[in-house]
């Protein structure tokens, strides 16, 4: 059958690509060797999700809460600062659950301590704090995921953040999103269609975020285990338009997308600080147009995200 043949060809190509690049790890940014420190581990959300991350198999090696060094949470040793935690445990990634007023400071502390990947879950960080954080991190070469995001999961290897781990299935599709539960919805649709995921990453719903769609698309393009990408955007800003430009110029792998907020009114912030149509800019139709012009298949309905990706894979 035609469809069957196509699928075989795709996996062969991915296999070759993986071999050619000599990719020893699969997925982007985090894998089974990632050693994670949880900032804000003694708080309610920090402790709760630490338990779930450990249950998923993530190597959580340390926690940090200033003033609570020496304690332990879920069997994880707590330190007063990230530098001390790194020295004692060799942590190389961080997950931030610190409240908004102190989150910027914590992210900068993680970057200064040499964390390669910093995942900020915290919602409600003042935007001017994030402007400072971004400049600080750019100067140090640290990668921030978020804030106001569900985190990142490389399936069956490492989960950093609050995603429900068990809805995932290992496979060839990278998932990339500005949202939380809508990402789970998409992942769930893929899994039910029998299509697994490589890495799922929520870049966050704030106007200023660390990792952009373009950054993540670039990582997926170079990842040996990813054959196709699902991009879930929403109204506000121009990140989807930039992603469309990148797909057109640089991507060889198929991309399927959905844009939330076709029915959102202008000038209103739709839950996420960054989801707002301002001055007529950032509407769903203009984002859909840009993506389609770049060859991206855009789902008409949020119930068809998985199906749209399946068709994109088949057409490859």
């Amino acid at each position, binding site marked *: 059958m035609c469809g069957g043949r196509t699928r075989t060809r795709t996996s062969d190509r991915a296999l070759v690509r993986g071999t050619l690049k000599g990719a020893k790890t699969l997925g982007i940014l985090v894998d089974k060797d990632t050693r994670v420190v949880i900032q804000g581990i003694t708080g309610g959300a920090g402790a709760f999700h630490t338990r779930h991350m450990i249950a998923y198999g993530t190597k959580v090696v340390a926690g940090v809460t200033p003033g609570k060094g020496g304690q332990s949470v879920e069997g994880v040793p707590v330190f007063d600062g990230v530098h001390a935690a790194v020295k004692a445990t060799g942590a190389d990634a961080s997950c931030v659950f610190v409240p908004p007023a102190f989150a910027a400071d914590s992210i900068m502390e993680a970057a200064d301590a040499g964390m390669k990947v910093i995942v900020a879950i915290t919602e409600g960080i003042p935007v001017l704090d994030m402007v400072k954080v971004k400049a600080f991190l750019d100067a140090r070469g640290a990668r921030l995921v978020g804030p106001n995001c569900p985190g990142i999961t490389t399936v069956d290897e490492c989960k950093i953040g609050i995603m429900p781990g068990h809805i995932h299935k290992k496979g060839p599709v990278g998932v990339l999103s500005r949202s939380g539960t809508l990402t789970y919805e998409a992942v769930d649709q893929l899994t039910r269609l029998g299509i697994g995921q490589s890495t799922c990453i929520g870049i966050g719903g704030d106007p200023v975020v660390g990792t952009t769609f373009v950054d993540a698309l670039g990582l997926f393009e170079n990842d040996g285990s990813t054959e196709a990408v699902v991009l879930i955007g929403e109204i506000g800003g121009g990140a989807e338009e930039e992603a469309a430009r990148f797909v057109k110029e640089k991507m060889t792998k198929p991309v399927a997308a959905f844009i939330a907020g076709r029915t*959102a009114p202008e000038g209103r912030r739709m839950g996420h600080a960054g989801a707002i149509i301002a001055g007529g800019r950032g509407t769903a139709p203009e984002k859909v147009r840009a993506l389609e012009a770049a060859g991206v298949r855009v789902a008409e309905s949020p119930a068809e995200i998985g199906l749209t990706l399946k068709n994109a894979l088949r057409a490859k």
Partner: protein
Amino acid sequence: MKLHEYQAKGLLKSFGVPVPDGRMAESAEAAAAAAAALGGDTFVVKAQVHAGGRGKAGGVKVVSGIEGVREAAAAIIGMRLVSRQTGPAGKVVSKVLVEKGVAIAREMYLGMLVDRDRGRVVVIASAEGGVEIEEVAARSPEKILKVHVDPAVGLMPYQCRILGYGLDLPQDASGRFAKVVACCARALVEKDLSLVELNPLVLTAEGDIAALDAKLNADDNALFRQKDVAALRDLSEEDWREVEAGRHGLSYIGLEGSIGCLVNGAGLAMATMDIIKHCGEEPANFLDVGGGATVAAVTAGFKIILADPKVRAVLVNIFGGIMKCDIIAESVVAAAREVGVKVPLVVRLQGTNADLGRGVLEKSGLAIIPAVTMDEAARKVVEAVGN
């Protein structure tokens, strides 16, 4: 959070931005008294509402003498101001700003906000003021000047000069313009403003610079450390349902349709509105009850949704992740029972323990219409409205 013009001008004045002498008034009498205290003969009376387009909507009047102010204020206070930004329902005006008239030589534009794509504050200036900047950007982008601010050092004097000279102002006026730019940038940073817009910022006949209009938005996420800005919030300008939702940690926005939505997560909430439209109906609201969807949150959500008389059916769409669907189903059932939902209620639970969750709904004895996929849920709720 939006500020009124009179509040914005008061705040900017405290940072050294020149604004016309003016006072806020809540009655025609108070407006006349304000004019008498200000002195002079020409005055401007301006409606104070959280919306642009006031001039075209008849909310701004230039008048002579104290009697003129009294008449203008009497006409504006109590009027229903309808502009593109208020929507067809308009906004009832309860306050005016009375200002001394200014003789204008030139109108300009000055704005600053966070450029999302660059992650930095951008300062925008244009020689063309008094018209919407988006319109200038579309028609003659060469007339727009921009500088980006390095957060490590802040806005530098040379950047202010670039803008001042770029507008081709007389030598001394360009210096004064540069000072206004610096003052506004300081206000933006120190008060966590997400938007500063002076449109128009004018060169007066006397050669001075003055902000004739001022629009400030404050970053909601920073209000915890900006108590004086937070105190300027005018709840009478906001939809009470949105205020009530905020009190319960929910995010609600009222819309024009007939299907109420209750969803966990902002992205999924938008997508739920979209799929209702896709199936041929219009959503009545946006409502994000938060990832966990607790009994308290869902109860508050139902109450707010059902306060809207346009709502003829409700769609609950919850993706249970770490919070399991059976627990969420119990919340939904408890809330529906407490509130007494009288319109058709479609509940779609997906994710962890979804089957157990649907079992809880069935056993509840409530007339809940269950659905498995988003598509099915949307079709069922649209059908329910059709009946």
